[in-house]
């Protein structure tokens, strides 16, 4: 476990560095939520999920859906590190003609369904999980959601349906960084009591530190063992995690780092890597 966690940790740092580089190069995008979800994404792609980058359509693969589509730099970085496409593609993010669109596009190898319009992701994952049950497959469906998007009514329609169908092949994660574009979630539209909400909708809820790899691995492993219920991992995270001047700063929800900020951020992440 310890060695696995160490590997995942180094992948998460690589993802963070790539996020900073991609967004600085693109000149726009969403660093805050990409950085807060980096450890979750690293755990799934380098410790939990079953997939084959050489055969993205492998019929027994686990499926990942990024409901918070604006945080795609984290996912793109992970896919490149897995070998779905060359790493040098990453710097074309958000440019005309690029494969790497500003929000996930299903033409990208490793991406199942496009996302970007918030609140639909859990429904899409629900559809995938239902298909898995119809086909009697043992593969699992993972859905990464933002906290702000929980304000969409569509999410709660899906929440109800996932437990109605007892979808134990579905595990969703909330990147609970407590910020959205307009400010703190508790000020814009309070989500609390969040755990009770999901429990009352019939979900098994596991809370964890979304930046502690051992914690996350344990949560995902526990989720696999739960029967007749979907699992929601409420991952407590820090917006902008890993770059000091971005942490808890709402401005970095949707602003790319400048050239100077890029340098500082990469230096900080370099130190983290060597620690």
């Amino acid at each position, binding site marked *: 476990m310890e060695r696995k966690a160490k590997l995942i940790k180094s992948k998460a740092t690589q993802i963070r560095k790539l996020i900073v580089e991609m967004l600085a190069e693109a000149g726009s995008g969403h660093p805050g939520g990409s950085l807060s979800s980096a450890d979750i994404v690293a755990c799934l792609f380098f410790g939990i999920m079953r997939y084959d980058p050489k055969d993205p359509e492998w019929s027994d693969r686990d499926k990942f859906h990024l409901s918070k589509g604006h945080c795609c730099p984290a996912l793109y970085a992970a896919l490149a590190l897995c070998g779905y496409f060359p790493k040098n593609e990453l710097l074309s993010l958000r440019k005309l003609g690029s494969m790497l669109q500003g929000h996930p596009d299903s033409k990208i190898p490793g991406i199942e369904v496009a*996302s970007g319009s918030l609140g639909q992701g859990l429904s*899409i994952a*629900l*559809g*995938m999980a239902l*298909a898995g049950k119809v*086909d009697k497959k043992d593969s699992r469906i993972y859905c990464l959601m933002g906290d702000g998007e929980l304000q969409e009514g569509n999410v709660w*329609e899906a929440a109800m349906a996932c437990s109605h169908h007892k979808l134990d092949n579905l595990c969703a994660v909330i990147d609970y960084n407590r910020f959205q574009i307009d400010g703190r979630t508790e000020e814009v539209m309070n989500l609390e009591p969040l755990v009770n909400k999901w429990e009352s909708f019939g979900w098994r809820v596991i809370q964890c530190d979304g930046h502690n790899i051992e914690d996350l691995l344990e949560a995902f492993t526990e989720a696999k063992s739960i029967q007749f219920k979907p699992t929601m991992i409420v991952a407590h995270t820090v917006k902008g995690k890993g770059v000091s001047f971005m942490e808890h700063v709402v401005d970095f929800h949707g602003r790319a780092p400048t050239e100077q900020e890029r340098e500082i951020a990469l230096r900080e992440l370099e130190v983290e890597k060597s620690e």
Partner: protein
Amino acid sequence: MEMLYARDVYGRTLIELGKKDPRVVVCDADLSGSTRTALFRKEFPDRFFNFGVAEQNMIAASGGLASCGKIVFASTFAMFATARVLDQIRNTVCYNNLNVKIVATHGGITVGEDGASHQALEDINAVRAIPNMKVIVPSDAWEARDAIITAHKTKGPFYIRLGRSKVATIENRKHFHLGKGYALTEGADLAVIACGIMVQETLKAHDILKKRGISISVYNMHTIKPIDKELIIKIANKHKKILVCDEHQAMGGLCSAVCEVVARNCPVLVDCVAVEDRFGQSGAPKELMDFYGLSADSIAKRAEEFIRQ
């Protein structure tokens, strides 16, 4: 002439497709009795999903199912199958070009007594502009069957609009080809293009006008998108005046689709028999057709005025 519910034929066709193709799954949002998807549920309970009164979830989850190789038929009333779920249709179903076939029943003013809140008159407008979407408004139950079979074998999203009431079967119906309209009658004085139940009304108008010595060409334009550009240009070159009949707002439906082709390729006068920027109301379907000027008599009257104009 047979009188049939298109939705009955829809339910039966789903069973046929379900038997032939294990990829077929069906979704509904608490209206499976009315949409007739319940017929499929009885045969294939494991491939039927009732989402309850939650259309947004139904459409986005249909996208998820389709992304796993399923061919999804998703049904509810036209009022709840389009504008209410337009973002799910656009960003999940159409952007990913997924095999989600939205078959909406209870389209148009002929929903009747339930009134304006249930009379979808803007549904075609809502879905028509979205890339990858194909739109069909069958004129009778057998054309509905053809459309459903075509949607099953054609990749990508479809919107198929069916009505609530029984409809008369068109006698000289031709084999259905997606995106290809056809002439039901040939006349010299005016061309009338229609879809859905307006085809039957137009055929009745044809008989009324015939007694007055006026002959019209009646075209069935069952596919609104992709629209049969070639045929419309041919019609415009032949007739110089085109009347379009649609059980929909004049804005955004078949009338607009025809005007777009005509204005860009072969400018001739176009007039419409459609709902003119109004909401419906409660009433018997026949009464509403008369009140909103959609019945055969209204079409005949408008046609005569238009010819003289």
